[in-house]
């Protein structure tokens, strides 16, 4: 075969290889759930501190707990109710019970062809909360996305 054809053949085979690779099906590997990420801080030292025991569940969903007397939780992840514009959680920090209510708007977003769609949220208010164990909640970022970004700081 003439030498002058070799670059053309190489180009064609390279393109054909790219075609075959691009046709291969892929799996869903991205994060698909938008969660409120809340870091827990010691109110005295103002430093990150995980409680000795943390329990979390949705109001009226006490049979299915998100955390059940868990140790070393940091950050706490709150999944928001997709069918509503608000939801309330019961949080038990070292056996002291509080409630936190979120109000938000939501909008759909494509994650990827493989994973499908999810929702991003925007907190419309500072969360409403009781002050038994919790002293203060600071909103660091109102946009609730699939990215690993801190949204709230809970001082207790």
């Amino acid at each position, binding site marked *: *075969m003439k030498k*002058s*054809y070799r*670059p*053309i053949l190489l*180009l*064609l085979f390279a*393109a*054909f290889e*790219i*075609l075959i*690779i*691009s*046709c291969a099906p892929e799996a869903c590997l991205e994060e698909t*759930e938008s969660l409120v990420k809340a870091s827990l801080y010691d109110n005295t030292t103002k430093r990150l501190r995980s409680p000795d025991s943390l329990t979390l569940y*949705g109001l009226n*969903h006490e049979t*299915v707990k*998100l955390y059940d007397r868990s140790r070393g939780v940091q950050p706490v992840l709150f*999944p*928001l*109710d*997709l*069918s*509503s514009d608000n*939801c309330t959680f019961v949080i038990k920090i070292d056996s002291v019970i509080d409630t936190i209510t979120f109000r938000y708007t939501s*909008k*759909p*977003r*494509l994650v*990827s*062809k*493989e994973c*499908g*769609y*999810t*929702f*991003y949220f925007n907190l419309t208010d500072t969360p409403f909360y009781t002050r038994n164990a919790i002293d203060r909640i600071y909103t660091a970022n109102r946009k609730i996305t699939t990215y690993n970004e801190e949204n709230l700081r809970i001082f207790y």
Partner: protein
Amino acid sequence: MRRTCVFFISLLLFFHSVSARAQDTIEFPLKIRIGMDVAGPAISYYNRDRLSLEGVLSLDRNEKMAYVLEGGYLKFNYSQYNYDYRTEGVFMRAGVNFNLLKPETSTGKYWAGVGLRYGLSLFSTEVPFFRKENYWGTYNSSLPGRTSAGHFIEVSPGVRTELFKNLSIGWSVRLRLLISGGGGRDLRPIHFPGFGNSGKITNAGINYYIVWEIPFKTKKVIRIPETEEEEEEETPVEGLPGNEVPQNAFPY
């Protein structure tokens, strides 16, 4: 497997029929080409969720370059466990083809080279159903239909060979780079006409064309003779070790 066979058959046809001719000037026919893609309808025959029709019009500028205009229509439905997706629309690609073959090899009958394109697509998308599950339960929703415009650029290496007089076949691989798929950051299309899977910024596809050619002008092209590489023959050199003939080799 079928695509692979088509690829090698057209490649064999191409290289089998090519032969160099020794002359100083050659008559190179410039042509208008009208073609249609047969890969799209063939895939549509097996995949009822996809209807793809595509045509091409090209005009030779000279023996090395041709202007190309492609257009087509795509209707595509996609479903998986957590959503359904529909898109329908038209697209066009405009650009040039460069022939990497020498004129005396190409003779207007054979083409092997690369194309560059800008693509524009106008389409509507709809997500009739999607499902999301989390702690609070399962939530079903949908996204209403809307119209978008997508832009992309394309590099398309390929080959083409004359099968009968003024009738050619050829294929090209399409390597695409997305500029914009429309829909903003949140709801970019999953798939759109002319580009394909827009979930990724790059994509690849293949076209297999049947092309009708209309010669409209003949151009005289000066052939630059190629300096042939001289093959060195291994001839024995007298006086070198190993080539010496022993004195008693022929005793009689």
